[in-house]
């Protein structure tokens, strides 16, 4: 008897699942068509985002006379790649030099900034000292001060300290990053307290606890912030414009600007310069896309 009832229930259930399956199949097909249509629309719209870049790349490989031919030659009829790029990299406004300067400033800034930020984050998350939380709040509160507000005082410091017109002013200007400190502190707080406590009992010095135990575990957060810092330092233009006047110290962003001023209406060369400035970012973005989007969504803002 019991068995019979159970069978009945099972059969009943089977019918139900069947019905649901049927329904799902119908809506699945409709969903799939809808999804395909919307994917195509999104794809068309995303062309608006990429076409300027594609135009830049294609123009950088053209003869100057072909730049403004219409309809647009997306693939150049005649290529002039090597000559254009040689002009950019070894010409009057040498990008080899600008590149070297940019890499130097960006790498030093990123490494030092991350070191300072993670040291502070370690103290804010794992050590106890009077005034800790107040200082942390103060740091976060100063996030609202725009870079431009500190521009004139920084200019004066650098003049007084005879640092004006050196790469040091660029690095110093970009070292302090509240969002890095915030992000890494939050991450370190999520690490179990036992880790640092047991290290303490072992008699490991505070610095060793930081360097050998906490820092390796914080790698994901540090990598995320490092990529983002790299991008913003690479893109920095305002500081170089104001604090650097010696052409030998120019970075890539100012280089593009100088190049544009110098070559005026040689649009193919100007585009080759832009490609050169943007390519490292595309590479970094392609490699660390997940980290970049994640880090920027987690409240780390530009700067």
């Amino acid at each position, binding site marked *: 008897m019991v068995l019979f009832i159970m069978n009945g229930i099972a059969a009943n259930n089977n019918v139900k699942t069947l019905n649901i399956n049927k329904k799902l199949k119908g809506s699945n097909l409709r969903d799939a068509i809808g999804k395909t249509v919307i994917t195509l629309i999104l794809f068309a719209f995303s062309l608006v985002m990429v076409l*300027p870049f594609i*135009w830049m790349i294609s123009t950088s490989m053209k003869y100057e006379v072909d730049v*403004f031919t219409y309809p647009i030659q997306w693939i150049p009829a005649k290529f002039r790649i090597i000559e254009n790029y040689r002009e950019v990299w070894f010409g009057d406004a040498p990008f080899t030099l600008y590149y070297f300067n940019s890499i130097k400033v960006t790498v030093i800034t990123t490494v030092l900034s991350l070191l300072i930020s993670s040291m502070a984050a370690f103290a804010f998350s794992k050590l106890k000292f009077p005034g800790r939380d107040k200082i942390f709040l103060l740091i976060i509160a100063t996030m609202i001060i725009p870079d431009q*507000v*500190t*521009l004139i005082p920084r200019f004066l410091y650098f003049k007084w300290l005879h640092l004006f017109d050196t790469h040091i002013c660029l690095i110093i200007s970009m070292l302090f990053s509240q969002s890095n400190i915030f992000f890494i502190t939050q991450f370190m707080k999520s690490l179990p307290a036992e880790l640092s406590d047991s290290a303490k009992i072992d008699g490991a010095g505070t610095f060793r606890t930081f360097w050998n135990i906490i820092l390796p575990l914080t790698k994901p957060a540090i990598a995320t912030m490092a990529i983002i810092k790299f991008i913003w330092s690479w*893109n920095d233009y305002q500081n170089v414009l*104001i604090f650097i006047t010696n052409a030998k110290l120019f970075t890539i962003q100012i280089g593009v600007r100088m190049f544009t001023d110098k070559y005026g209406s040689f649009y193919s060369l100007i585009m080759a310069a832009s490609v050169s400035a943007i390519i490292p970012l595309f590479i970094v973005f392609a490699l660390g896309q997940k980290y970049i989007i994640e880090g920027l969504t987690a409240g780390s803002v530009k700067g």
Partner: protein
Amino acid sequence: MDSILRKINSLRNSESFAGYMFILPCLFFLLFMAILPVFLTAIISFTNWGSVATDISKLSFVGFKNYIDLFKDATFYTALKNNILLLFYTIPVQLVVSFILAVLINKYCYFKNFFKAIYFLPYISSTVAVATIWMVVMQPSYGPLTEMLKAMGIENTPKWLSDLHWALPSLSGMVVWQNLGYDIVIILAALQTVPAEMYESADIDGANWFVKIRKITLPMITPTIFFLIIYEIMETFRIFDQISVLTDGGPGDATQVLVYYLYKQAFRNSHINYGATITVVLFIIVFAITLVQWIFRKKWVHE
């Protein structure tokens, strides 16, 4: 007992000491790069300090003279007006478009990550290079944008950035294009926090997509939209790179904005005191926006 207490005490003290050591570099930057500059700028705005070369002993306080000059300065009002116009030209379009795109990308399409990346690309690209591309694309007489419009039968194409009336809207178009991806990614992250059950129960009630978006999605992500509005307002008041590369504030003062005007006054015209005065006004605006944000976040955003 006594010795144990002392030991604990000394351990605590050493931890405090270590804590301060770890945040020392950070504190240094907090003081000299964030807090002190605000006060220095404010002080300078009350002096007659023109060029840096002026001997400090010759400086004197001039009271509110710089502020009185500023409030009589037509260019200052133009810059302020342009900043505010930029808010209205960019933020509504950007939010609406990115909201629609984010909703579509979130649920109704394939290749989600691909679209996320594509739309995000302009945001991480260097503003200088991007501005340079747009400068060529918007070349007034035979640039690709003009040619495309002509091909569509539009005869009186504007002169874009060199047109008195079109310069600011053209600039806004570029800004929206570059920042759209950031808004999309932030809204996407917020959409993922909306519980699926809410949509399911709305489905059972027979709600259509419009009702679902209006009654569930929008209220749930209000805090995010609010954050984006504030963030974009701040970004708009900080706009500088594009203007420096593209228009130099011109034609006339058509694209003059506060930060560019302060840069011109302080560093090109050697009116550091006047630049500082504009900086103070800028800071007050940014500070006021932050205050409004604090008050409103408590009032009408349920978190």
